[in-house]
């Protein structure tokens, strides 16, 4: 039995409606409890800002595509190298660090739960292997269904229950957490070197449209009773004028779930572009934010771009090829049979580049224009918009108009005419930041009931204590103090253990992996469906029996059983 008592914490805990109260947090065997004995170890938080451990609801940290980003980038690895020290392993890398590098740096910033944004089912085992070596965060994986042959056939046949059954079988097999659609239909078209232009453009051969894929899978998601909603990377990422496609996609979504959104639209910054080409490229953050304000069924994340070097990586293969043709840097692509694909290229976002400057502004605008912080979460689509180590700077920008103006003065001068940012006065407060970085993320992922994103009794004892007294800091002026505090916790507590202290990690932990197992009726068990089995055997190159990820790959196994309505 291990007991820990955090005294004098200045707590913001949005999921419990707590906004800045001094209180003690009692921890017993990794869980938050009402009280502990006098024997408990005590940490005096001395009135410092104390939040639930950070949750990143969309990041790329583990798996085939991330590792290929590392593999092809020895120049990136030269930055950020640290030696083995005590229980800590060596790390390398800046935009695509090693697993330990990711884990330690996230931990120092107070993050304790991460969702890998894209896992190809056929290569799921790889993602899970890397999770094991991401020791200081609990992990879960979005599973890609954007170009799944069996699903597209079921959609063509109008059989949503079969769609749900295939998803259910696959999630269970690959130990996935949620459904990810990346450029739905586009990744299949890309296996012919083609793409789909928007949601009404049919996928070659399968003759279903992205709109049909999105709608059917959203319905299937609710049939399966999954904790998270469908997680959508819209078609047409990164192209001028794509905002109308984005609005069209969001407009497809009914409100089907009382507890959470029905659709999570990811890295919307990359989907909020106006203009007809790069010459008249401009921000369309306003129509997107207004649209989302009116629809509680939508949650989005920012996908903020920050200036500097990074590596872009996404399941959106055709988009990466277009980027390659623009930059002519190195380009990798990896198509996955019957399922999806991915692409990777390194990029540098430059202040002196007009398009990059506009992109930078759009992400901030989305966060500032969307009324409810629960509907626009803080991400960079790590590492696509920027490596996650930039989050503290983004927090600073959102909390300080002064900081935004100072930065704005350094970017391309024509930006002003293309974006609404300079006119936005809003400065987010501490509570809103807490929503956007943990509470809102946990709610959107549907894991608050599993003890994530809050500090209520029964919750996992994941706590971030920042070296900052919020009464003594005016974030709109002292933004540098805000940035420094969010860069290094005073304490990061994971499952009741202090894992990081003042910028240094202390222990080699062990992660827990969350995954879902929808219970379906016998008739919808794809493992026994002759047609599914036959096609699997004929067209995959892996035997069906060798496809599922064994439980050996889960360090700590957090299986979520759901009651499916099929």
């Amino acid at each position, binding site marked *: 039995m291990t007991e820990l008592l955090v005294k004098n914490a200045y707590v913001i805990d949005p999921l419990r409606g707590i906004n800045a109260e001094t209180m003690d947090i009692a921890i017993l065997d990794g869980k938050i409890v009402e009280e502990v004995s006098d024997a408990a170890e005590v940490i005096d938080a001395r009135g410092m800002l104390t939040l639930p451990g950070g949750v990143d609801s969309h990041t790329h940290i583990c798996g085939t595509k991330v590792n290929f980003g590392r*593999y*092809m980038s020895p120049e990136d690895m030269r930055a950020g190298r640290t*030696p083995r020290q005590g229980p800590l392993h*060596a790390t390398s890398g800046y935009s695509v660090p090693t697993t330990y590098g990711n884990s330690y740096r996230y931990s120092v910033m107070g993050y304790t739960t991460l969702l890998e944004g894209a896992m190809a089912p056929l290569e799921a085992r790889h993602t899970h292997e890397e999770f094991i070596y991401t020791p200081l965060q609990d992990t879960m994986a979005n599973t890609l269904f954007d170009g799944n042959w069996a699903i597209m056939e079921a959609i063509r046949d109008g059989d949503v229950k079969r769609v749900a059954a295939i998803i259910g079988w696959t999630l269970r097999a690959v130990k996935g957490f949620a459904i990810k659609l990346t450029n739905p239909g586009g990744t299949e078209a890309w296996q012919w*070197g083609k793409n789909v232009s928007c949601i009404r453009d049919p996928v070659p051969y399968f003759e279903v449209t992205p709109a049909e894929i999105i709608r059917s899978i959203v319905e299937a998601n609710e049939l399966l009773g999954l904790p998270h909603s469908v997680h959508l990377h819209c078609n047409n990422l990164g192209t001028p004028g794509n905002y109308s496609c984005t609005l069209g996609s969001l407009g497809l979504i009914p409100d089907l779930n009382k507890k959470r959104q029905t659709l999570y639209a990811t890295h919307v910054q990359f989907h909020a572009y106006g203009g007809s080409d790069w010459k008249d490229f401009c921000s369309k953050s306003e129509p997107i934010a207004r649209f989302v304000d009116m629809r509680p069924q939508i949650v989005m994340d920012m996908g903020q771009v920050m200036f500097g070097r990074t590596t872009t990586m996404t399941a959106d293969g055709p988009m990466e090829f277009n980027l390659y*043709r623009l930059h002519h840097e190195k*380009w990798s692509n990896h*198509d996955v*049979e019957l399922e999806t694909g991915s692409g990777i290229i390194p990029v540098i976002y430059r202040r002196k580049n007009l398009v990059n400057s506009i992109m930078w502004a759009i992400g901030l605008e989305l966060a500032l224009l969307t009324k409810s912080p629960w509907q626009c979460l803080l991400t960079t689509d790590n590492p696509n918009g920027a490596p996650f180590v930039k989050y503290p700077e983004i927090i600073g920008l959102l909390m300080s108009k002064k900081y935004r103006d100072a930065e704005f003065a350094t970017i391309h001068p024509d930006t002003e005419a293309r974006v609404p940012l300079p006119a936005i006065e809003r400065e987010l407060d501490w509570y809103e930041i807490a929503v956007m970085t943990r509470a809102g993320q946990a709610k959107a992922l549907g894991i608050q009931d599993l003890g994530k994103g809050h500090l209520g009794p029964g919750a996992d004892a994941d706590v971030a204590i920042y070296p900052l007294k919020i009464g003594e800091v005016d974030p709109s002026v002292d933004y540098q103090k805000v940035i420094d505090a969010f860069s290094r916790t005073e304490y990061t507590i994971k499952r009741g253990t202090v894992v990081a202290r003042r910028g240094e990690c202390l222990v080699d932990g062990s992660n827990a992996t969350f995954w879902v197992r929808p219970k379906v009726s016998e008739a919808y068990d794809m493992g026994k469906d002759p047609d599914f089995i036959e096609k699997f055997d004929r067209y995959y190159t*892996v035997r069906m029996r060798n496809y599922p990820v064994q439980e050996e790959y889960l360090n700590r196994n957090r299986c979520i059983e759901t009651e499916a309505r099929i």
Partner: protein
Amino acid sequence: MIVKDAVCPFCGCLCDDIEVEVEDDRVVAVTNACELGTTKFMGEKRMKNPILRDGDRWRDITYDEAVQYAADMLLSAERPLLYGWSGTHGEAQCVGVHMAELVRGVIDNTSSVCHGPSILAIQEVGHPGCTLGVVKNRADLVIYWGSNPIDAHPRHLSRYTRYAEGFFLENAFRDRKVIVVDIRKTETANIADEFVRIKPGGDYAVLSALRAIVQGKTDTIPRTVAGVTREQLVRVANLCKNAKFGAVYFGLGLTMTRGKYKNIRNAIELVSELSRHTKFTISAMRGHYNVYGSNEVNTWMTGYPFGIDYSRGIAFYNPGETTAVDILARKECDAALIVGSDPAAHFPRKCLEHLADIPVVQLDPYPNATTAFCNVQIPVAVTGIDAEGTAYRMDGVPIRTRKVLSTDYLSDREVLSRMCALMQEALER
């Protein structure tokens, strides 16, 4: 007992449809595997227990003694080399990386002498690739360049290309064209629709010429390039541009010849160029069943796929300097741990001369050429036969190998974990 869907631990194809018949803890029959895989499953003559070289003779020792010997050896070295890794499971490779970090040594895997140059090329220009099933279901043009699957990857042709059924091909054998490019008229060349014979050392020039022709700059190209006529080059370029889905599979014919990684870079740039016209992919014919896994594991743990030097605590990567052949030939290590490979059979003699001068410990199920240079050899279970664990197929698909029979041998992971624990204890003291 018959074990179905076993995974073949021989080549990078990692075929997972093998049936293995086991009687009395012995493999008695193997179905579906090629000759290479069958022989491996049926392998006998394992080393029975750990051995120690004692002057001019070999002495049996216990596992504890052997593990202690290895730990002491690694801890006292100023620059130990931990080499091999392609013939074992990923879980053991992970322990290997931890050990290299701990003792501040150099860890390298067999890719430095197979597709290391391909990795160097990918690091310069990237890699447009795909899983094997994408090619099987779609490709109407397959090019084997400097690779000879009939000898090295016997089922590649039947499972994924020439003889494979494909979803989008009505009659795969008829509708799929195969081009072979090589300096030898190999058996694979005999089943090709078009054979391009290149003069030795001429791959780079031919690839450059094809890139220019694909761009429409045929005029500049001389009448013959490395023994290939301009007419044939134009024909090949047109076959590529007119394909719906083209796939290049290249082998050591490109990585081992003069120019090394520049050959691969050129091939990748040709494929990137063709991607402007149609769908094209390129992939390496990885040799050992889990050599790709050793790259994957090294990459997520150290940041680099092979040739990692932890001497200074942080990871340093520079193939040509931090790779096994260079280090051994230049005598720049003072101890070696060999796991899952046989450098004495596959390295130039100068490397072996240094192996003879330094302490060497090897983990391997069989006596092999490297045994002769060992101070200690520790026999282990064979991954895919009496040990299970993760392996990565040549296209990056991870598959868990199965255990088809039980023996008393420890797995590589178990032996290495013990070694690592001993070293950790010693360092803490």
